[in-house]
């Protein structure tokens, strides 16, 4: 197995996730795309852990999984709050940052 086959798979997943973050309008879908990005990072960590013969990558992959769970929890709570206030979770309607 090549190092690169895992790394390039991770890169592809990452870019698909980036596309999802940019293109999606529904906030839940954006959160799903972020999960894709996080998973690609995990694949990277584990590939390098195997390559370097170190365990640190595993530790951080576990931490990332835990952080992702927390992020989804808070993210969905935010989405719920937005929905309750505006009856919509379309991100392009949240344009209060307009200059």
């Amino acid at each position, binding site marked *: 197995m090549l190092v690169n086959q895992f790394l390039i798979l991770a890169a592809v997943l990452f870019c698909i996730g980036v596309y999802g973050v940019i293109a999606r*309008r529904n906030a*839940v879908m954006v959160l799903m795309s972020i999960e894709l990005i996080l998973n690609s990072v995990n694949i990277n960590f584990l590939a390098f852990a195997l390559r370097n013969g170190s365990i640190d990558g595993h530790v951080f992959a576990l931490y990332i999984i835990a952080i992702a769970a927390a992020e989804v929890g808070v993210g969905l*709570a935010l989405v719920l709050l937005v929905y309750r206030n505006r009856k919509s979770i379309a991100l392009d309607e949240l344009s209060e940052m307009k200059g």
Partner: protein
Amino acid sequence: MVAQNIAFGIIAAIMVVGALRVVTVNNVVHAALWLVLVLAGAAAQYILLTAEFVAVTQVLVYIGAVMVLFLFGTMLTRAQLGREKKLNNSTWYLGIPTSLLLLGVMILALTSSFGNEKLPTDSEIVSTQAISDQIFGPYLLPFWALSFVLLVAVIGAIVLARKD
């Protein structure tokens, strides 16, 4: 060796297709199911990378818990369960050049630095005990920080989502 490469190829193809479906289908529930496929594929890749414990955690946490959260989120926000027309932004096309540019840069960097480097084949599966020794040894402090983050997230989610 060949078997592993074939397994990798099949799983990777499933994952890429699944990921593409996640960001293109017009149905939130379907997207969530495609995401399950990608996450399961990722767990399989972790096993190929000798990371047994991480793979199990991935299945338990992601497929078990996070996906349920997503489905709940979808239901609670009363998204249409069927097809939806406007799941994409008006400027969704911006994502294509951006992600292609990013992909090009990353592949350029990866091929130029790792080329045909091979992963070691004789390595054993990393034992759970070794990981726990790392976590509760030198990485104890990040572990504490992480527990605080989780606590804060739990409290924050309750505060944000409860109805006053």
